[in-house]
């Protein structure tokens, strides 16, 4: 009898340790836990290593310069490649590497080559441009296939212009994009998150202006 009992005890202890261990592992993972569909933290690698930190953070380019649909349409929009070319027809590489080339050319006593960064080259390739910014004959322009970061389910209707015109700041949903090298989904973009904001602003207003954010299902689902 005694031996059986002690066997049982050992088993209990082992099981208990196992349970505690699993629980500990689970708790550690809890921080990374995502309900399916919750893509918080999603930061896919993009075809071009475009830095929002540089453009929006350092150069202080307004969000709506590139994402011009935000004010007028439901989609903020990904800028057309031609929008990049507004600047990058002139700016082809970082100041550092151009200077380096200038100095190198000076040392080697030759004219400085035109420097084109690898990432920017992808833009030119997309438009089928050669080094002279002229259309390369025989090459087909191909748009850049960005990876969508902020995906809402298809059964949700979200309208950027409705929010932007009510002075909802971009970072309210997108976070401090101007600090991100690569864009990351900061908020979980869940329904609860949307509803809570809609409820809060109905009490607090946005930047002191009272707003009427709808809580009807049909505001987003139809």
């Amino acid at each position, binding site marked *: 009898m005694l031996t059986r009992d002690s066997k049982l005890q050992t088993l209990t202890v082992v099981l208990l340790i196992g349970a505690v261990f699993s629980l500990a592992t689970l708790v550690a993972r809890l921080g990374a836990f995502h*309900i399916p*569909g919750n893509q918080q933290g999603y930061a896919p690698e993009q075809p071009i290593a475009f830095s929002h930190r540089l453009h929006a953070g350092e150069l202080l380019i307004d969000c709506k310069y590139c994402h011009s649909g935000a004010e007028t349409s439901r989609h903020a929009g990904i800028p057309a490649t031609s929008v990049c070319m507004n600047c990058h027809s002139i700016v082809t590489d970082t100041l550092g590497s151009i200077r380096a080339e200038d100095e190198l050319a000076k040392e080697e006593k030759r004219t400085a080559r035109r420097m084109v960064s690898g990432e920017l080259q992808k833009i030119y390739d997309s438009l089928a441009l050669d080094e002279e910014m002229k259309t390369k004959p025989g090459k087909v322009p191909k748009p850049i296939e960005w990876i969508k970061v902020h995906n809402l389910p298809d059964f949700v209707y979200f309208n950027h212009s409705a929010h932007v015109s009510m002075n909802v700041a971009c970072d309210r949903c997108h976070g401090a994009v101007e600090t991100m090298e690569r864009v990351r989904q900061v908020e*979980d973009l*869940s*329904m*609860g*998150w*949307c*509803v*809570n904001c809609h409820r809060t602003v109905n009490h607090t207003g946005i930047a002191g202006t009272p707003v009427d954010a709808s809580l009807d299902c049909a505001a987003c689902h139809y």
Partner: protein
Amino acid sequence: MASMPSTIHSPLILGDKNPSDVTNDICASVERGPSLSWWVAISISSSMLLLGLISVAYQIMTGIGTWGLNNTVGWAFDITNFVFWVGIGHAGTLISAVLFLFRQKWRTSVNRAAEAMTIIAVMCAGIFPLIHMGRPWLAHWMAPYPNTRGPLWINFRSPLVWDFFAISTYFTISFVFWYVGMIPDLATLRDRLKAGWRKTTAGFLSLGWNGSFRTWLHYETVYLLLAGLATPLVLSVHTIVSWDFATSVIPGWHTTLLPPYFVAGAIFSGMSMVLTLMLIARKTMRLEDYITEQHVGAMCKMLIATGGMVAMAYLTEFVTALYSNSPYEQFAFMNRAFGPFSWAYWIMVGCNILSPQILWFKRARSNMLVVFVVTIFINIGMWFERFVIIVTSLHRDYLPSNWTGYSPTWIEIATLVGSFGLFLTLFLMFCRFIPVIAMAEVKGVLSHGRKNQ
């Protein structure tokens, strides 16, 4: 003793059994190997179950469209089966709880099986609300739990939510009640069986029961409390099921009569199904001494009583409609009796009202074959009662432009057959593995009606 037999003083258990006989007799069916007839029965029932499983799988993969429903008749076989099985599921708790509270000692012979039948029937019933959903994989949305949708909970005003809570509570309580009642018998089994998986299982499940009277004392209290709680529960469940219809706006559904009508109907159908199964079990499992003509007679009387209530409800419906002066309501009932589905209505009346009348006669009550046939009729009639309520009310409601017919597809019929398959399979398993009669309770009433003790 023989000259003046009366229910109160005649023995409940025949054959002058002592507790040991009871143990031997009842455990025998568990201990001896399955008979050929059991194998035949289970192979038939599990084939039915398989057919049901295939049809449900097909339905879930393809869509509810594989049922004969349409835009007007959104429920038919599915909810009919649901209400039918829930109704069947009422007898067990009723026999266990209500009769317990009323100190009806004869219940002890049938309560175990009746409770098992309840649980199995509720399982059969529970399947239908699940598979009738367009997206059953989202059934958990019926439960209020914290989620990413923020403050979106569920609609506590919906009778379906009430139903969800009622059925799950009912199943839980019935199961607990059944299990608690079974602990002493499991202990008996544990102490009788030779070592093996069955002994281990019985040992595991009997929770260390040792027959201590201190435990018995609390046990009796728990049993009484459970009975006390289960009695309003059993009434509430079918009341809530009836509210699925009664709180709607559909003529023929929207009536205050439905709760008592449904409860009476449920008891009626449940009693009838218990009797059907008991009559088979007493014959095949040689339990004539435990389930005596006296038991059958008592249950027949309950059938007459509840059948009378049901008949009363059928009549009242018409009177209410007539009195309501609502043309929609009046039409609903005229349409029930004389419309395209009048055949279903008259099957219902014939089976539920006319057939039990024969049980007024003692000779009929003591003829097991007659009783058996009557219970089969009632089972059929009660299925049709639900069909009539659901389909004939829906198929012709307010706007004549929406009036449609309904006919089941083979998938639906196969699903109904499958639910019977599940019911019978589980019941046969129960008969095979669990003492079908509550030994501990029967032992307590052995002396009942015996003069010398």
